[in-house]
């Protein structure tokens, strides 16, 4: 019953963990930029004048929100190479899956933000002669982005958690390295406790910051 915890194998393998951490951060950074960036484009297409653009964007959002991200990653890893004659690395597959999934989610966030801006803002900008695009860029988006900042931060936190799924296609990140260490040293309890703790220690301050941000925005509105 009294299991003796032993963290020495983990300390001995700190370099492997560090390598995993680098992989995690690298994947996170790429997916954050691509996911949130592409999401904005999808959101704008969603309210475009052209029906085709609207339909494509709705289809994209619905499909990527209504399928599991792990299925998406595995599809890009195992299925896509059958269609296109290029090699898909675990890194690429993970980027595709996580970024597109996050784009679909963030598109809905941007949309809610843009919709929350009162029509009077559009009218006032148009009344002083601004074009639609100018109004969007100078008046509506700055206010909308401010309002959805907490939701976007949350998305970022979700992306960070999602990077662990890349271990399923053997991309070298924290969890993958953990699995390796656990299988060599037969110490899964210590390994997964430490990995979980690392994620918690890194993400929890961000979670708290998001709460604080939400409160601040709620007050100032």
């Amino acid at each position: 019953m009294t299991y003796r915890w032993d963290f020495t194998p983990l300390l001995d393998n700190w370099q492997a963990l560090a390598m995993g951490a680098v992989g995690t951060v690298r994947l996170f950074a790429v997916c954050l930029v691509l996911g949130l960036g592409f999401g904005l484009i999808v959101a704008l297409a969603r309210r475009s004048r052209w029906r085709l653009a609207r339909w494509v964007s709705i289809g994209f959002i619905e499909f990527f929100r209504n399928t599991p991200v792990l299925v998406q990653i595995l599809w890009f890893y195992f299925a896509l190479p059958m269609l296109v004659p290029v090699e898909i690395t675990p890194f690429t597959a993970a980027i595709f899956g996580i970024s597109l999934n996050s784009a679909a989610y963030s598109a809905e966030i941007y949309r809610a933000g843009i919709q929350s801006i009162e029509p009077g803002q559009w009218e006032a900008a148009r009344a002083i002669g601004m074009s639609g695009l100018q109004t969007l860029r100078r008046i509506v988006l700055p206010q909308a982005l401010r309002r959805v900042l907490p939701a976007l931060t949350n998305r970022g936190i979700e992306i960070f958690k999602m990077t662990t799924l890349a271990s399923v296609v053997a991309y070298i990140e924290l969890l993958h390295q953990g699995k390796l260490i656990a299988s060599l040293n037969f110490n899964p309890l210590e390994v997964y406790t430490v990995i979980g703790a690392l994620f918690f220690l890194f993400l929890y301050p961000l979670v708290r910051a998001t709460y604080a941000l939400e409160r601040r925005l709620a007050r100032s509105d």
Partner: protein
Amino acid sequence: MYRWDFTPIWAHGDLLLAGLGNTLVLTAVALAGGLPVGLALALARLSGNRLMAAPAGLVIEVFRTTPPLVQLFWFYFGLPIILNVEMTPYLAAALTFTIQSGAFFAEIFRAGIVSVDKGQSESARAIGMSKAQAMRRIILPQAVKRMFPAMMERSIELMKTTTLVATVSYADLLYQANELAQKTFRPLEVFTAAALLYFVTITLVSALGALVERRMAQSGEMTR
């Protein structure tokens, strides 16, 4: 040009459907466990009693903040070492997703409960109701209606997250798809079919949820 061929998948369609069945079972179990766990955690966190609020808060924050796959591995590979018991993929998955969805539900319950106007609990207390009676008869019924969309959304997230159990060999839809892909050498068709199955199931569930929501809004005399 790749020649699509779905015949091997039709031949093993029962495998995928059995996997989908297991996905639904696991989701239902985690939902049935997660809702009461979530309510208990929320009430503990709101209790004003530090000895209850602090541990509840810790469980909620840890399970919301750490990656679900790490949680699953911890329960599947790590927990049996402490408890000295056999762990099955099903048990590990049911435990992980019950507590994890409980943590998310707890925050939904909490937000719903605090969103109910303070005058409601005051007037319940003013006619002599106990705290528990006021919660059960007055506050929760109003909160639940408001929480329904968030609950629905979280349940769908839960269903999608259950795909992680494929990594510990629980025979859910994704696991079966992976097996089938290896057996038939047709990963494109198999994973596409699996993705479509998920898409159809999840779209149906959300449509159903939206329908219920609209019914509730129509019959809901509570919109002031």
